[in-house]
């Protein structure tokens, strides 16, 4: 039963997430809230690990979430279910490549998905910021990271490594 839910949830993520690897986080956040397959702390840990291992972040988080939920089989199911919508969409789009981007409904859909995706991410940012408010060290580090990357953003990996090292140094 848990496998079916897992397939369903990750298929939906693959179908509806929009705007790169971190765009899947709102869905993972929601899964954590309603099913409790992993805690919010574990979610940040998952995203962290997914960002520093090879492979697309959006797919790595699925692998990790599946693993947390129901072991290696869950991991394989979550990863592939998340990619199947791409498989279907790409085949359809490849066949009607030229007509696709001119279609009225496609245009409206893409125009609508952007603000929704933006709102989804903003809401996760708000959700994850709440626990940070009680941790002054986290607030300072967050402020510095945002200042550093505000003008010219480098690869996320770079900032995650810096913050990881800061985290270790604070414990020394």
């Amino acid at each position, binding site marked *: 039963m848990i496998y079916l839910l897992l397939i369903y949830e990750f298929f939906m993520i693959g179908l509806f*997430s929009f*705007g790169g690897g971190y765009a899947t986080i709102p869905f993972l956040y929601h899964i954590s809230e309603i099913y409790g397959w992993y805690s919010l702390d574990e979610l940040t840990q998952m995203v962290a690990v997914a960002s520093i291992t*090879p492979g697309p972040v959006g797919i790595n988080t699925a692998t990790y979430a599946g693993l947390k939920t129901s072991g290696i089989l869950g991991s394989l199911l979550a990863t592939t279910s998340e990619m199947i919508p791409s498989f279907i969409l790409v*085949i359809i789009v490849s066949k009607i490549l030229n007509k696709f*981007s001119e279609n009225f409904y496609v245009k409206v859909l893409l125009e609508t998905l952007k603000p929704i995706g933006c709102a989804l991410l903003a809401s996760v*940012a708000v959700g994850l910021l709440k626990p940070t408010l009680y941790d002054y060290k986290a607030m300072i580090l967050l402020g510095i990271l945002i200042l550093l990357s505000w003008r010219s953003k480098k690869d996320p990996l770079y900032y995650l490594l810096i913050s990881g090292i800061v985290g270790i140094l604070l414990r020394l």
Partner: protein
Amino acid sequence: MKISLLKLFLIFIKIGAILLGGGYVILPIMQSEFSEKRKLVTQEELVNYFALSQSLPGIIAANMTMFIGYKLRGKFGALSAMFGVIFVPFWCIVLLASVLGKFVNNTYVQGALWGVGVGVVAMIILTTREIWQKSNRTLYFYIIFLLSLISILIMKISPIQTIILFSISGILFKSFQRKRGINK
């Protein structure tokens, strides 16, 4: 010249292994593998696929992988590319998760996880800003953005339901607008 499914699988294992960081590095990697080294896909096609991959829903890297796999060897090509690209990342995660499980109580590991966790929050804020900046912010954009935010944050409607709700309303609204425009 046709590439074998096995070869495709192997090339994508390599791509999955060297793909680090955001999905945006996938274009240069694909260019060197498929356009420069093997001349299987032209530069122009790759850029086209990349633009489409970003405008389609789903993981950008997954879309890109499927486009190339499908172009080279059809449905099975797409599948073998898919299993190739997740191969190394998959085992990395499984391994790291089990190792992490053993060391998670170590104070330095906890420190690193705390730090990277803060970094992730920063990255989410920056990604939000990036999508915001890249979008064509019309009145329509602001309205949908605000309504979605209310729907998720205040009304606690799930992301998928929010997406379905506003996509359908958006299409209905725009169709209505278009119809009125034609009638005038």
